């Protein structure tokens, strides 16, 4: 689905490459989390995939084709919900469709309502974003990401701005969504537990600059419950990941 081939990237303001000859691959339908200490360049990987930045060298392929020859190949969901405050929820959600410009008014509204229903926000479409709770806004943002129509979803710490309890609920909710939609999800987080709970596979950043992502296959199968995290093999995996990340921080 997504392939990085020897990708190198450097920010103009910096004198080193934050991503250095990085190669990795994500299969179709996988849920892959990228973890690593803050500031190591996890989000930069996303900025490269959605073409907000162009790599200095190397190639990024989606479905075997270079991304610069494609459009609408990925749906990006940022940390903040980024809902436009002057638009109602339904009008926010249909924004990607408006931009693609290939749909009629009623078609856009219908699809937006469907997407809202899919994320459990039926009947909330006429409200304004400020009238929703933080968790509901993130779900609306997720619905908007779904309407990009892409099979590759990039979720950049989508729950980091939420309170702890809401986060716990939201990650179970996200897992349900994924099991139903079966889209490929690339999920950036610095929360090891969150990564373990959600993913088939965890890619851990080996320090900064990122030259390699170490891949860990998560032992537990789906569906998962909060108890899954208490299984001994998950606990071992968690300890191993935390130990690795701590070594890097120190």
């Amino acid at each position, binding site marked *: 689905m997504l392939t990085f081939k020897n990708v190198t990237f450097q920010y103009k303001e910096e004198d080193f490459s934050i991503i250095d000859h990085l190669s990795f691959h994500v299969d179709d339908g996988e849920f892959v989390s990228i973890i690593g200490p803050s500031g190591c360049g996890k989000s930069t990987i996303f900025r490269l995939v959605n073409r907000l930045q162009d790599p200095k060298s190397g190639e990024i392929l989606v479905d075997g084709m270079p991304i610069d020859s494609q459009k609408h190949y990925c749906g990006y969901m940022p940390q*903040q919900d*980024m809902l436009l*405050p*002057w638009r109602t929820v339904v009008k926010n959600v249909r924004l*990607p469709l408006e931009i*693609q410009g290939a749909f009629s008014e009623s078609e856009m509204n219908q699809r937006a309502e469907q997407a809202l229903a899919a994320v459990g926000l039926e009947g909330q479409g006429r409200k304004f974003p400020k009238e929703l709770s933080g968790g509901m806004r993130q779900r609306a943002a997720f619905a908007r990401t779904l309407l990009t129509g892409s099979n590759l979803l990039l979720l950049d710490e989508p729950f980091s701005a*939420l309170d702890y309890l809401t986060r716990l609920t939201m990650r179970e909710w996200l897992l349900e969504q994924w099991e139903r939609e079966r889209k490929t999800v690339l999920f950036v987080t610095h929360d090891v537990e969150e990564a373990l709970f959600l993913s088939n596979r965890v890619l851990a950043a080996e320090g900064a600059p990122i030259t390699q992502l170490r891949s860990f296959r998560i032992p537990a199968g789906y569906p998962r419950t909060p108890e899954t995290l208490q299984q001994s093999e998950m606990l071992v995996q968690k300890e191993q990941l935390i130990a690795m990340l701590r070594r890097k921080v120190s």
Partner: protein
Amino acid sequence: MRQSNQGNLPAAMLVLALLMLWQIVAMGMDAAYILPGPVQVVLRLWELRVPLFCVHLPATMAVVGVGLVISVVLGLGLAVLMDGHPAAEKALYPLIIASQTIPTTALAPLFVLWFGYGLWSKVLVTVLMTFFPITITVFDGFRSVKTEMIELLFTFGADKQQIFRKLKLPAVLPYFFSAIKMSVPLSIIGAAIGEWLGAQRGLGYFSRRMMTQLDGAGVFAPILLLSVAAMILVAIVSIIEKCVITKEAVLGEAPIYVAKEKRSSKKRNVTA
């Protein structure tokens, strides 16, 4: 707007008290050519209603109208240009700021010299006074749009024009309206100054003519008219703003929007 009429009551009472004080002092001085009382001013306004309303008010409003339209076009154009092209911003922004150090009022006689006693010398004063707040406020509005928002729309495949239409334009609307509300009184001041310095008609011109005749109430009457005109214009702009903003509920600060949120926050259920 924010509060009900009860909130304006203290202000209204203060105005009334000040007017009464003015009237008492004026009656005590008993020199109407220096300090006419408010009652005398209103009476004089009534006596002069035909020339004031039929000749001079329309003349001043023409200057204000033409000046404002030019300023809005110029200000919006400059703001859009500077937002779209960093090079234009670097070249123009310092110039626009510097232009404000020019004492427009002192230059006004020169404009009369160049453009004569007609409409355009006054329009120029008005434009010089009002294009600045419009340009800078609207430009600030463009800059208030978060980069992350622009980037998100870009990842949806939006081009520059779509980002402008769907994101920047609605975000800038409240800024635009405050700029206009700021500019209306300024443009009236500009027009009056222009007329004061050289004109054949207009409220500023009329006020000066009355001064040469030592008609104190006659000086005040057009000023009163100017103030009322400014208030009415600002009120009209506010009404237009409300209509536009209600339609799209622009930004979280919009009044209708805040009211709505207050109501709903109580019944908001914790959902996640």
